[in-house]
Structures are given as C-alpha cells and as structure tokens.
C-alpha cells in the first residue's frame, strides 16, 4: 500500500505540470467539463431532490413536541443538505459515476498502447490525460454541488406543497433562519478537495493498469472504492479543520 501511495505521488508530480499546448488543454478542459460535469447534472438533480424531500419528511415525523416550531424542519433540511448531503453524498455518487469512467477510459488507453503512443510522440501522457480531468472536476463539481443544494431545498419545499406535514411558510422561514454563509464556503472547500481525490485516484488506477479487459474492470472498481474511502476520510479531516 505504501508503494502504491509512492507511485500515486510520483504520478501526481507528472500530472501537475504546465500543459504542453495551451490551446489543446483549453479544448480538453471544456470537453471534460461537459463529460464529467454537465452529463452528471441529471443524476445530481434527481438524487438531491429526493434527498431533500426525505430529510424533510423524516425530520417532520421526528418532531412531535408542540414546543418545537415547524420551521425547524426547514432549518434541519438546509443544514443537512448544505453541510453534508450535497458535498459528501453527491461526491460519493460522482466517485461512482465519474471515477469508474475515468479509470476505465485511461485503463483501456493503457492496454491498447495509446498511452505508449503518446509517450513516444514526446507528450507527457499523465499531464495530457489526467490534468484536464482534475481541473475540470475542480471547476465544475462546486457548480454541481450548489445545484444539489438548490434541488435539495426544493425537495423539502415540494413536500410542504404536496402534503400537509408542515406549511410552505414555516419551511421557507426555517431555511432562511440563522443562516451563516461560512457553511457554503465549508461545503465548497470540501467539494474541491473531493473532486481532486476522485479524478486523481481514478486517473492513477487507470494509468497503472497492466493486462487486459479484466484488469481494466478491476481498476475501475478500485478507483471507486479508494475514491469513496478517501472522501470519507477527508470529510472527517476537513470537518475537524474547518468547523472546530
């Protein structure tokens, strides 16, 4: 494991370099923003909407004390969604969707000698293939997470509209009460770190593949598992650092 970590660091040294050609990098960046970010918009919106709705219903069922105001539901949904559900849960879902895609794409390039071809041409393959993905995710994931927060809050609002568990007024009052902008900064900081972890770990797993289709599949699985573990670990570290 220590040797793998060493290889990961060495690869990252190759990845984080000035791109070979600015115009090519910019084109790749836009393509990656499209494929890693924009194409994930649907799943992020759906999951966030239901996530917000479920948190709202669960909070509502757990508040049976008449002394606790109904606006607590909105407050709880907001805090849960912004602090944890949007940045962490959505990043875990993206680790599955985006991580497996990156690892299998780069892994297939490795086993079909496309990476060797890049190297022979004099292109730094690690920088050329992984750097645009890392930067694209670090740019687009915060946007996705902000949208996730929005859809999460909308989910809670829809519950108020559709059911009579609590009123829209109580909910809206709750999501606006005692708001501290720092929690957004905290959530986005986590998101950027998670985006780096997902793309760099998945890129690494794909890059070091040896063998054929079976090994590419295994690398894809390892990418998701390790990205998820690192997200959970760094969630703990960053929460302690940023909120304590």
């Amino acid at each position: 494991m220590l040797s793998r970590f060493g290889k990961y660091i060495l690869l990252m040294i190759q990845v984080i370099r000035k791109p070979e050609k600015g115009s090519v990098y910019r084109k790749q960046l836009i393509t990656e923003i499209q494929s890693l970010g924009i194409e994930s918009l649907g799943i992020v919106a759906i999951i966030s909407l239901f996530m917000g709705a479920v948190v709202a219903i669960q909070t509502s069922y757990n508040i049976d004390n008449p002394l606790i105001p109904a606006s607590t539901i909105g407050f709880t949904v907001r805090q849960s969604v912004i602090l944890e559900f949007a940045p962490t849960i959505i990043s875990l879902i993206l680790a599955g969707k985006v991580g497996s895609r990156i690892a299998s794409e780069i892994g297939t390039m490795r086993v079909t000698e496309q990476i060797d071809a890049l190297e022979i041409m004099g292109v730094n393959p690690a920088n050329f293939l992984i750097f645009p993905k890392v930067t694209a995710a670090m740019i687009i994931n915060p946007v996705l997470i902000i949208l996730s927060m929005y859809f999460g809050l909308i989910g809670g609002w829809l519950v108020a509209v559709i059911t009579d568990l609590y009123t829209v007024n109580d909910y809206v009052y709750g999501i606006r009460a005692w708001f501290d902008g720092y929690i957004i900064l905290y959530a986005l900081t986590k998101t950027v770190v998670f985006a780096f972890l997902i793309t760099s770990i998945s890129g690494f797993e794909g890059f070091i593949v040896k063998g054929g289709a079976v090994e590419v599949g295994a690398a894809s699985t390892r990418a998701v598992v390790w990205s998820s573990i690192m997200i959970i670990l760094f969630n703990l570290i960053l929460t302690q650092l940023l909120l304590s």
Partner: protein
Amino acid sequence: MIQALNISKSFGDNQVLKDITVKFEKGKTNLIIGQSGSGKTVLMKCLVGLYEVDEGHVYFDERDFSAMSFKERKKIRQEIGMLFQGGALFDSLNVEENIMFPLTMFTNQSLEEKIERVNFCLEWVNLENANKLYPAELSGGMTKRVAIARAISLNPEYLFCDEPNSGLDPHTSGVIDDLISRITEEFQITTIVNTHDMNSVIKIGDTISFIYKGQLWWEGDKTQILDTDNKELNEFVFDTELTKRLKKSKIH
C-alpha cells in the same frame, strides 16, 4: 542510424536482454526477428525509451538517448514515428484528427496546412477520403495504414514498427510491408521492424537481427538467412510446414 551498445534489461530476476550490441542503418529496413518471448519487443521498447535499460547505451545518430532526461528526449521523440501492434489509434479521434494530433501538439501550422499534410499522408497509405472515419469503423489493415500515416506525419527520421503484420491476411501483410519499405527508401529514414512473419523477412529484410533467449544470435540480410547454418535460426525460419517443404525442394 540507431545503435544499441551492450544493453541489458531485467524484470525482477528474469533477465530478458543480455548484453546486446546492434546497429540499425539509415535508409534500410532493419528487422528484429525471434520467437515469441525471445525479447524482441522489449528490445524495441528499450530503443524507443518506453523501458529504461539496466546497462548499456542507445544512440540515435551519435546522441546518447539513454543518458538523456525526459525533456532532452522530447526532441528526439518528435523525430520518431512508431507503428504499434494494434495500431494504438486514439479512439475518441477520427482518422484526420489522429494523423493531425502530432502536428497540433508540436507545430504551429494552420488548420489548412495540417489538413494538407493529413491528406498527403493518407494518399501515401492509399486511404484517401477516410478522413472522417473513426478507429472503430476501420478494418485491421486500414488501422495499420492510418497508424503508419500518423507515424510519418511529422516527417520522422526514425520509424519503429512493432509486428506490423500481426492479425492481417497475407495480401494485406504484403501491402503493409511494401508501404514500410517504400517509406524507408523514399524518405531515407532508419526503420526498425519487429516481426516473426517470414514473408516480411524475405521480402523487406535489408538487415536482419535474430534474437534468441535475449541475446543477439545472428545478423545478416534476406539473401543470407535462407542459407545460414545457424541451428537456432534454421529452427526458427524453417518451422512451418510451408518453409520446410520449400527447403526440401531447394535441396532436391
């Protein structure tokens, strides 16, 4: 000219190349032959720098490639074209973009100039009008020809071909061999072909290096190889039923 001087390469305890010294000449099609597992692919990968040699040196026209840093090697790498066994075309790019790729990365040519060069290269490999096809839409022979077109797009000084005939029918193999030989002569480049296809050996082998168990076992050319008395080489060359019968008929 490319020269390997006393190169050795091991993977763990397995020594794959043992003290190989060999010279590949300019304007000639230089063949590396040997059985599967003999070390010829490793030798080629050491020559192009995909593997680092444990001992020895690789020279590209007096320039010590093996002693260079990644940055220093970059210049030489832009003088290298390589045809991989499976073609190694970029899946996400069409034929035109694949051939254009080295031009985009390493030249400041305008789009018109690049397209002109792409068409020139495609003409060379007899694939005019294949510009917009994707690698998944190409046959094995077409893939190899596009890979050759990409390899020559930057006017290389050195061309490496790793088993260019693998998976191809005899006719298409012949087409690829002719193409490699024609490019070598026309552009006066140093071409190294890694193969175990005996048709290629007899057809285009200006110089032939036979690798046996990681060692350079025999050197010669296509006229000498059929008459050699080297036991291991004879076993390799006359291993198929067809070549055995040919040898028999020649003796009688």
